[in-house]
């Protein structure tokens, strides 16, 4: 991927600008400028809570002679990060036509282990084996990033104990349950020199020695000696530090986050302009009305919009109202 910062002649006029300072497969640090605080925070919030990923949501236990209770194990399984790249191809289970779950809305993983040796046995995420028809080869595979390649520990078995279960991983967002969170921690700050006086240092003698400086002090000009306080200044440059917990790459989290915002905004715009076109009905409507397959649906708080590949975001990133200011989807980003 090409992470070169966008080179634009007059970035000011064009809208938000992103400058990436560090990126690897766990975290990305970047600066977002030329945006306002509410937008910057929205992006942070969406990256924390509204990016659809997949996680184990249903566990069918056939045999469990371990010491841990069924729901205890199910809870632990749910928290195992699964690869969510390509999750957009999966339907939300509630939107799927099937009765319970199917390969269009879920990924099935099975776990079958029995301790036959004389020593206690550790069962880790590696032992989860995908089963059944799959639309995508990597989607729903446990994310394993430790050196031994084991992944998170699920439970331990004593000699003779056995565990046999089927896990159904479904798509969801972190607002519903934290297991669907793609990100671990998201660092976010602005104004490293406190020029805006949004914070009020408390110190005993000298704030310079008592407070560790922000890591972004070098990015911005320190206030000049005796510089008058600018009452009209608003925050403009925001520093993010996005760390992934595994399901998506750090870049994926950011792009997906933007995509979710776009969808939400598009949904909102659509709602506001509804009378001018689209549906005949222009009164207030409940979420059920908006659903269905027409694609112009109501966006639920869980980010679903009709389940289908939406008209906005996704591939094109074009709304009926022309190109969104935030880049033409994939073009500028990837």
């Amino acid at each position, binding site marked *: 991927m090409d992470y070169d910062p966008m080179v634009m002649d007059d970035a000011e006029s064009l809208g938000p600008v992103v400058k990436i300072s560090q990126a690897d497969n766990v975290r990305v640090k970047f600066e977002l400028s030329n945006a306002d605080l509410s937008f910057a925070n929205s992006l942070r919030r969406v990256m924390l809570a509204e990016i659809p990923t997949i996680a184990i949501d249903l566990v069918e236990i056939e045999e469990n002679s371990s010491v841990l209770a069924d729901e205890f194990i199910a809870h632990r399984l749910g928290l195992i990060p699964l690869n969510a790249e390509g999750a957009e191809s999966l339907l939300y289970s509630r939107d799927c036509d099937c009765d319970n779950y199917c390969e269009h809305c879920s990924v099935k993983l099975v776990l079958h282990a029995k301790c036959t040796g004389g020593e206690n046995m550790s069962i880790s995420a590696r032992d989860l084996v995908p089963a059944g028809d799959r639309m995508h080869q990597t989607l729903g595979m446990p994310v394993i990033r430790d050196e031994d390649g084991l992944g998170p520990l699920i439970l331990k078995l004593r000699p003779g104990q056995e565990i046999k279960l089927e896990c159904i991983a479904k798509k969801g967002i972190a607002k519903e349950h934290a297991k669907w969170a793609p990100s671990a*921690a998201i660092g*976010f700050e602005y104004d490293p020199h406190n020029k805006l006086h949004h*914070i009020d240092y408390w110190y005993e003698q000298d704030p310079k020695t008592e407070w560790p400086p922000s890591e972004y002090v070098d990015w911005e000009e320190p206030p000049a000696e005796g510089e008058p306080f600018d009452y009209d200044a608003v925050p403009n440059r925001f520093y993010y530090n996005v760390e992934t917990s595994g399901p998506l790459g750090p870049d994926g989290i950011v792009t997906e986050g933007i995509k979710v915002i776009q969808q939400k905004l598009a949904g909102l715009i659509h709602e506001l302009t509804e009378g001018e076109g689209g549906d005949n009905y222009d009164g207030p409507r409940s979420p059920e009305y908006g659903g269905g397959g027409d694609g112009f649906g109501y966006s639920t708080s869980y980010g679903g919009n009709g389940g289908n590949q939406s008209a906005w975001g996704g591939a094109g990133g074009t709304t009926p109202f022309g190109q969104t200011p935030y880049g033409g989807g994939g073009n500028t980003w990837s």
Partner: protein
Amino acid sequence: MGANDDGFEALLEPFYNGKKLTDPISTKEDKYQLLPAFLKVKGLVKQHIDSYNYFVEEDIKKIVQSNRMIRSDQDPNFWIEITDIRVGMPTRDDANELRDAGKHVTPQECRLRDLNYSAPVFIDIAYPRDRMRVVRKNLALCRMPVMLKSSKCYLSGANNRKMQEMQECPLDPGGYFIVGGTEKVILIQEQLSKNRVIVEKDDKGVTASVTSSTHERKSKTYVALRKDRIVLQHNILMEPIPIIIVLKAFGGMSDYDIMELVAGGDTVYQDDLLMSFDEATKAGVYTQQQALEYIGLRVKMGGARKGRTFGGPRRNPIDDGLDALTNLIIAHITIKDSDFYPKAIYIAMMVRRVLMASHNEKLVDDRDFVGNKRLELAGQLLSLLFEDLFKGFVATLKQQMEYFFKRPNRTAAYDPTGSIGVNGRGITQGLTRAIQSGNWTVKRFGMARAGVTHVLSRLSYIAALGMMTRISSQFEKTRKVSGPRALQPSQWGMLCTSDTPEGEACGLVKNLALMTHITTEAGTDAVEELIPNLISGVERIQTQTGTEMHKEGSYIIHVNGTPYALTRRPEAFAKAFKQKRRSGCVSAFVGIHINQHFSAIHIATDEGRICRPYIIVTNGKSTLKAEHLRLLQLGKVGFEDFLRNGVIEYLDVNEENDALIAISEDDITPAHTHMEIEPFTILGAVAGLIPFPHHNQSPRNTYQCAMGKQAIGAIAYNQFNRIDTLLYTSLYPQRPMVITKTIQLIHYDKLPAGQNATVVVMSYSGYDIEDALVLNKASLDRGFGACQVFRKYSVEMQKYRSGRKDRLGGPMIGEDGKPIAKHRCLDKDGLAIVGSKICQGETMILRETPVDQEAHVDGSRGSDEYRPAPVNYRIADPAIIDKVMISDTERNSQIIKVQTRQTRRPELGDKFSSRHGQKGVVGTIVEHEDMPFSDTGLVPDIIMNPHGFPSRMTVGKLFECLTGKAAVVSGHRELGFGDAFRSHPVEEMGRTLIENGFEWGGKDYFTSGITGEPHEAYLFNGPIFYQRLKHMVQDKMHSRSRGPRAVLTRQPTEGRSRDGGLRLGEMERDCLIAYGASQLLLERLMISSDATQVDICEQCGQLGYKGYCQTCKGHGKVTKMTMPYAAKLLVQELISMNVGVRMQIEDKFPDPEPALPMRPKKSVHA
């Protein structure tokens, strides 16, 4: 892990608690390492176990020894002698050799099968037959409940592997009993010391009293100063007896001798006593004979002497007096060869104490002084009970024997072996019943105590541990005296200063401190032998006159409170005695102290004294050297070796007063005699959980001591094998980030109850007022505070006299071929399926009971029908069947236990607390993205309102947070220590934080998750150990519109368990009255409660029936009205007591259509 891993494996490792062998040892820093060594030997509940061991190994033999001979009154040639008694190892009562071959009963089996963990007791007897002495050995007498981890328990000395094989937790403290499957603790009982003189002063005057306790009886003797005259009082005496008469009755003393014995050469005391001499003269008592007669005439008949004079003629008063003096008054001084001098000395001493106290108020004793208290433990209590029961056994055995010999024609020689086991059952039952009910009745002492035993609380590991160190006091809880409740300076180091309940039992229920030891009886023989030979110039007291005793500079040596010898060199004597004790010639638990006020040396060997080890300091230097600690570290020596080598010794509370104890090595001066091993041991096990307790306001530590016992955590390693009535476990218990050495020593780090929450101290959302907490939803999703609740439902399949038994039925099948909804969870055998979800009203055990239960005399068969008697799940929230157990009890009936499990995540209103007495409920649960976050993206688990700090002054919590944060950010967990009374390394923590890029005070830059703007102020944050407490909304929430009513009053039932109504109480009623909301009042108190229609006769004012008045014999004047059923009931109940009640009715609003409810007017005619 070592082969004999008893939880002290750290001691065996080359790295002892993080210290390498090559590290230098400083006696100043490392002396605390004696503490684990002490606990390794003594353990936390060693008091209980020591006391029980002493009982089953020694005391029980002594009891039998003193009751060994049973002689027949009918046949003087026949006797039974009980030569020996032994307690075996625990067995099943229903022992079956085939089944049990090689397998012994384990405590866990007893818990599960509702058995008693008890061992058979065997006796050896001898009796004559045909002029031969027949010896019968190993006759089973009874069964003795066995204390866990005592010498008679299979768990004693078991290593981890064995413990695991027995499904037992290696960290379990033991020291309790298992009776009927429940774990019972005999609490430590606090009492005033026995056989010691206590001088008290009240409005009436000064009184010296002594409670004499011997194996036979317990009685209290008073010597009191009443209106300048000294008298002796005792239960057996009808009236107080002038003291001179008593002293004269002992004989062998002239008036001068008596005067000298009491007052010595002191003229003030002599003058005081002269008044009492007049009393004797007035009563006409001059000689011993007269004195004995005087006393004998005032001895109550009956009572203790009833048995002995049974059937015999009334003896003359002189004999009565002599008998009273010999056996009843001050009974613990035994009379040998009719020598009353020791008793005279004792009474004279009491008189002298009274006189001294009347002149100098400071010489009055303090009954709250810990040195005047004795702690009674399980062993002693059992011994009292056993002796009583054994005496009863001997009596019935004798009765049966006499019955046999009374028979004119006997067919065979008498053989007592058969009746031993039968009569011994009484002992078994007596013991188990006492432990089960907690009612301790010892007939010969007239002792009847309730609440001696308690069910061991298994709410958390700490709750169980805390119970083992609990001391309950005999004081009445209702009495409003502050003395016994107050913290006593002499409690230092012996009893925990923080751990006491709030409310009515405050200060009366105490807890042992960490290093406290309670003595067992050491025996006086060795000491008595030693005293005359220790230094020169020690004379036996019997050979001395009063003149010599009370000479200036003479010190009386008392052994267990009884004058024994005389010396003029008290200091030299005490020094020599201590030397002997340090060298091991006398028991380490014998105490000696000098009382300068009374010129007395007291040597104590009795049981129940509280003592504690100290490091000996000589010539201003600690005897503990670095090489000692090195050897300890190498595991070459133990605590006992230090005790033997004079490095350490035990001091009891009295002896402490003679010692000057330094807290640390730096404080030592040449005057010091001892040094503390570790100051934090003045706290107990439960208070030891608190980090930095010395920075908290003291009541906060007390609150935490109460709450630590309610925290949900790991119970024991065998928690999933247990089936308890109610069991709470935590899904993810964590070792606290900031621990104390006590935590390591009691293994709380292995069985913790709480989690390290990242806490930010700020105000958020307004749902955090009044100590409410704000929780992060994502944290809850990830398992923060999640817990499991296990409940037991148990049923015993009864057998009936008709020969039928309860049985299990199959589920009822509905029309669709599936079981009916109520039986959804049942398997074919009528028991719930493990793993199935059970909802309210569904059946777990489908028991069926025979209709025909009574025995049939005529041999006919009753009905073959069974009616269902199922056990249903009654709780509103569903649960999952966790276990089903089927077994047999000792009564050979089947027992079925079903355990249900609920997994709960914290919800609004659940209770949490930190370790600093700061409890709070969940006020709101907030989405992750709305939570404040630091510049690194850190989001708190808990937001706590800062208003919790100023008034509570829990600085320790701030320190915990800071210390924990420093340990976390640096990755060095050895930083996380918060021991009491150690200097707090706040500066070091600040430095660590700065080194890791944090602010030194623990505050950080936080941004609002809602707006994205930074919080103006920096926020104090860090990990704080939070405990989830057992109080959960799910178990408490309750509402009702309509519902069940009580049968008697027809008012709504009370309480959640009965789906009761919410009471509109007196105070609420007062408000409504004051406001004048009469209709609301009427509705709440009558219409919505127990309104009922009654017929009242306007003519006679009595209740009618169906429009007819029984009294007036007519329908004419009977009207209907509404009134509370309770009022109607009252009227009827009064009538039943012959109190006539008439109700006069009048129309307040004479409308054509009167309103329905009318106020009845009542007038009562007696």
